[in-house]
């Protein structure tokens, strides 16, 4: 297959017809470059979009009480609904198997201090499953566990940023005591959270400890749960809606009251984001395909023109003894070489532009714009194939033309 002489002929033909070579290559380079950039931008938009939601578990449902806005069953509107431990028990009893994590959550802003350093943080009293809802993971020590809850111990897991704020550099917070609202809590672990700095300025304490210390009651501000990930999105949405209805009934809230019981269901959001990112995908695909088609049309035109322009030369070659097959291979190899080389060049420029522009694009909601190399290779191969097809048809026609006809073509 590899024939040095043939390639020498092809390179000479390309080298001596630089303008023609550059023009045909430019079409491909430009098409692949645009394709890369558009696809990269589209992916960047999608990345931004999904990063809004990745800080917490995708299968979380948040339920919290609020004031009613409608009078119902003899209760006046404006009544404050409150959750208690028994509301959590109600979930455990009524929806077995439908959730994989369940927590109570009482959140307060409190002053936390260590030695002379102090600051206000969100101190959240929770059950241990919170780490799965927040996707928090310990970087040192451990998270609060069931034993802490049972013993109602004064232990605290602090976020990475809390440690950084309060503790001198190089000193681990684990095992130290911090002052939380006037009481000493033992730091049992430091965690990181994909929610970023904001959520790494949280600190978690056992809910039982909190209920005992702050008011000695069994109030619950918010219930978080993780629905069973085996559920489909639709089932999860239905599950959330059923809980909303059941809780309204339980707390005598009018079924039409929008505020008395609030439910935030990730599944509902996923439905929405699925639609938006599907639409984004469609837009990106349509634009990319359009660009590729423009490239294909461009290279086809140029190949037709090239063969037309070379008709006479091909006639001379035939008169001198060139077989039709050698005419066809000569033109096809040239087309193939130009398209693959130019395609690769376009890819380099495109990724270069993305790389260069990436930091400048974040304010336009484009994050990490990048393109799957498989797609680019696919696009280049597509353009190569179209270059070959576009070159083959006129090349075959040229190879079939009788040399006298070609030679007459002045």
């Amino acid at each position, binding site marked *: 297959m590899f024939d*040095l*002489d043939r390639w020498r002929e092809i390179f000479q033909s390309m080298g001596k017809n630089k303008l023609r070579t550059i023009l045909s290559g430019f079409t491909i380079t430009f098409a692949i470059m645009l394709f890369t950039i558009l696809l990269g931008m589209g992916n960047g938009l999608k990345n931004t979009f999904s990063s809004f939601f990745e800080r917490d578990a995708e299968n979380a449902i948040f339920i919290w009480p609020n004031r009613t806005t409608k009078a119902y069953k003899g209760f006046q509107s404006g009544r404050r609904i409150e959750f208690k431990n028994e509301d959590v028990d109600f979930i455990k009893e009524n929806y077995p198997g439908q959730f994989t994590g369940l927590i109570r959550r009482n959140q307060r802003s409190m002053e936390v201090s260590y030695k002379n350093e102090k600051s206000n943080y969100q101190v959240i009293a929770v059950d241990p499953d919170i780490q799965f809802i927040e996707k928090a993971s310990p970087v040192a020590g451990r998270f609060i566990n069931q034993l802490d809850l049972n013993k109602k111990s004064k232990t605290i897991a602090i976020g990475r940023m809390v440690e950084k704020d309060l503790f001198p550099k190089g000193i681990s917070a684990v095992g130290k005591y911090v002052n939380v609202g006037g009481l000493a809590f033992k730091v049992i672990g430091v965690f990181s959270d994909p929610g970023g700095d904001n959520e790494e300025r949280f600190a978690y304490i056992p809910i039982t400890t909190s209920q005992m210390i702050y008011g000695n009651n069994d109030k619950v501000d918010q219930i978080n749960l993780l629905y069973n990930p085996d559920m489909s999105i639709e089932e999860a949405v239905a599950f959330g809606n059923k809980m909303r209805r059941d809780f309204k009934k339980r707390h005598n809230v009018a079924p039409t009251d929008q505020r008395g019981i609030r439910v935030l269901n990730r599944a509902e959001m996923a439905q929405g984001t699925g639609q938006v990112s599907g639409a984004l995908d469609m837009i990106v695909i349509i634009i990319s395909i359009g660009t590729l088609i423009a490239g294909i049309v461009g290279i086809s035109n140029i190949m037709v023109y090239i063969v037309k322009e070379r008709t006479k030369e091909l006639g001379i*070659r035939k008169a*001198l*003894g060139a077989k039709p097959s050698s005419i066809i291979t000569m033109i096809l190899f040239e087309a193939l070489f130009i398209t693959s080389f130019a395609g690769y060049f376009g890819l380099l420029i495109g990724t270069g532009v993305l790389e260069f522009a990436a930091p400048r694009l974040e304010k336009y909601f484009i994050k990490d714009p990048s393109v799957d190399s498989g797609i680019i290779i696919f696009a280049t191969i597509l353009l190569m194939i179209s270059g070959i097809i576009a070159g083959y048809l006129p090349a075959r026609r040229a190879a079939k033309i009788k*040399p*006298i006809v070609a030679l007459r073509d002045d």
Partner: protein
Amino acid sequence: MIKIKGLHKSYPMGKDSLHVLKGLDLHIKEGEFVSIMGSSGSGKSTLLNIVGLLDIHDVGEYHLNGQLIEKLDEKKAAILRNKFLGFVFQSFNLISYKTALENVALPLYYAGVNRKERLKTALDYLDKVGLKEWANHLPNELSGGQKQRVAIARALVTKPKVVLADEPTGALDSTTTDSVMDLLKEINDEGMTVFVITHEEEVAEQTKRIVRLKDGVIISDEVTNPKVLA
């Protein structure tokens, strides 16, 4: 070398067809220097194209080098052209982006000769036509006469059986015409069969045999005066 019997050729022209060659008989032996004379439309170019395997005939027999030419596909024709025939055209038909040397070497490329051998042989032939010094010049740097001599070197480089020249001096002035004709005569003297198509008396007179065509038939076939032969 070339043996033609009852050759007919017509071209479709819309609904009708144009009958160009109307039963030619011609026999050219090895080493002859023949010119075909005729005004335009006499069929002389058609005859050359058929003899040169650039076109196919309708009826009749054509033997080239003892081989009956029939059912010729493009590939076979290409091989035969490369092996047996050398072409010289009125408009030279050199490839513009190749140097004189590369143009001469091109038929050897299609004959499958390796590059080193090709360039060496091509240079020998350029030397033979007196253009060794111009080997690395592009066609547009050469005069008309020089271009035609390059074309002749190219026609000879594969050591063909027949050199076919289609109005080889049509684009040249009288001085260069003479030098090109001298070159063709010289080739002929070395034993090469040369077949020239022309409408110029002066050119035809320098060949050894003149075949006159008119309206697709041969009207005369004569050996020219011995003075030229000598």
